[in-house]
């Protein structure tokens, strides 16, 4: 089919395009993501058609539909698990071709894929001494932003985060550097892998949906995968490569081993990182890792000390503890667009403490 002459109405009427918008067919989704990167001049039409389809199909957001799908997948997998789950079954389109390729070719291909962007990067540096432009996006504490990168990938930036976009982005590579937390929906483009650098790990992807949390002041770095696959490389050990599967997240302690609070068995204890499944909110079964993208503040068995760091970023306030015992209080809660006072009052109901607030300064004590 010749899509080049398609107008908004034609896209919106096309069944495979509709599947792409609603995420109801992986093959169609892959095809259209690729088509969009190949036809950047049609971007506006495609975007308009997508909005129309989503609106007329009941006004559900792409994110909502994706969450529903992932939730159903995980529930139905648990349900049909009598036979041991064979992961390859679920993703046969993606995995089957790989198995037929000789291992050596596979290695050769990865080396080429890795070397080509490097060479291009080298070439570019050779030609232009000064990088032509550099773009950074920053969200202040208390502020959340969402935007689109030139390759069509969308990014939601949580409070107090910065993303630096590499000079050659989308022309030579797709590399960004992240400080803080962001949710990525990466457009598929196998020729330019999307790489996110953080202070403790690098995340390499082809096209997926996932969340990265890497605040420099936090004790841990997290990557949560909703769809597709990502490859993680540790900054301190480049040989270590971890592949995440959908519905998994990796938690990496940044400074020394953090106090072993959160579960996990002896088997994982020696490992510097932990891989767990994503957590669901018990009341409405939404994913807690990404609830911030819907303006919901979620605490999931966090110590008050961690809670304070979260609140400082979320509300742009300063929190000081007058008492160390209070720092150890643990909280699990969800707040839907509440003020800082409402949140603190709710926390007081669960474990008693005193707080005084003077503008943006909050002092917490235990009377």
């Amino acid at each position, binding site marked *: 089919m010749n899509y080049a002459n398609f107008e*908004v109405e034609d896209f919106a*009427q096309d069944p495979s395009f509709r599947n792409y918008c609603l995420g109801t067919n992986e093959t169609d989704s892959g095809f259209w993501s690729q088509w969009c990167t190949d036809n950047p001049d049609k971007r506006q039409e495609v975007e308009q058609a997508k909005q129309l389809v989503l609106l007329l199909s*009941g*006004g559900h957001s792409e994110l909502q539909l994706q969450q529903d799908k992932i939730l159903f997948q995980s529930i139905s997998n648990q349900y049909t698990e009598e036979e041991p789950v064979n992961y390859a079954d679920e993703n046969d389109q993606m995995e089957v071709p790989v198995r037929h390729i000789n291992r050596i070719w596979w290695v050769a291909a990865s080396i080429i894929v890795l070397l080509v962007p490097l060479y291009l990067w080298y070439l570019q540096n050779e030609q232009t001494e000064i990088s032509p432009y550099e773009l950074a996006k920053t969200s202040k504490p208390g502020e959340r932003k969402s935007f689109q990168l030139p390759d069509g990938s969308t990014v939601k930036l949580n409070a107090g985060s910065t993303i630096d976009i590499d000079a050659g982005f989308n022309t030579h590579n797709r590399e960004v550097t992240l400080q803080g937390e962001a949710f990525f929906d990466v457009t598929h483009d196998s020729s330019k892998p999307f790489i996110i650098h953080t202070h403790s790990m690098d995340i390499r992807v082809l096209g997926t949906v996932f969340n990265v949390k890497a605040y420099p002041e936090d004790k841990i770095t997290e990557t949560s995968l909703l769809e597709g696959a990502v490859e993680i490389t540790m900054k301190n050990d480049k040989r270590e490569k971890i592949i995440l599967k959908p519905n998994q997240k990796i938690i990496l302690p940044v400074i020394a081993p953090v106090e072993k609070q959160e579960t996990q068995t002896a088997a994982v204890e020696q490992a510097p990182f932990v891989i767990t499944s994503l957590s669901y909110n018990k009341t409405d079964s939404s994913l807690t890792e990404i609830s911030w993208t819907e303006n919901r503040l979620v605490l999931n068995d966090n110590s008050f000390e961690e809670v304070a760091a979260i609140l400082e970023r979320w509300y742009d306030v300063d929190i000081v503890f007058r008492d160390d015992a209070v720092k150890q209080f643990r909280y699990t809660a969800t707040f839907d667009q509440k003020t800082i006072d409402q949140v603190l009052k709710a926390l007081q109901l669960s474990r008693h403490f005193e707080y005084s607030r003077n503008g943006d300064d909050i002092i917490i004590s235990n009377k």
Partner: protein
Amino acid sequence: MPYNRDHIDTWSALRNGEKRSLQDIYNQHYIGLLNFGIKLTRQRDITRDCIFQLLLRLWENHQKLPAVENVRSYLLTSLQRELIAHIKTNRVREINNQKWDQLYPGQELSYEECLIQTQQGEELKNRISQALMKLSAREKELLQLKFFEDLDYDTIAGKCNITKRTAYNIVHGALKTLKSTLSAKQGKKLPEPALIHLIFLVLSGIQ
């Protein structure tokens, strides 16, 4: 009326206990079922949970399932039963919580109401409702069948007693009207992603 071949194939795969079919059924029917339930109950979360429950129940009983020609209508009827059962079991609690009115609305939501209630911001709501007002009743009906109820053109043509071509053309015209009314008003301010894209274009031009 011709029935959707893919739907029938997936249904028989489910009856044979093929695990993959559960995911396929979800993909083929989720939007249609979800919108049907929301229109009825106005509750997205409850509807979603009931759909999941229904699909899992189908899997559990796959050996006892009948052969069905119109899969969608079978599922819609089952979902309606599931929703009513859910509402009944939660009845006492819901009365106490005074959520009764929400669960038993006086009447179903209209298609327009369904679309508008999910949008955020008064300005956007107004814009969409004004755009929808420019459409004829026939156009709205067909948009609803095509997108909201997620039916294919064969089914729509049969339901409305028109040819597939006519159905297609009416939807095409309606989309065109919507596009121009929505984008005419959007034109005032360029949305942020487009702006970033523009900056990149300009910069790469310089380079």
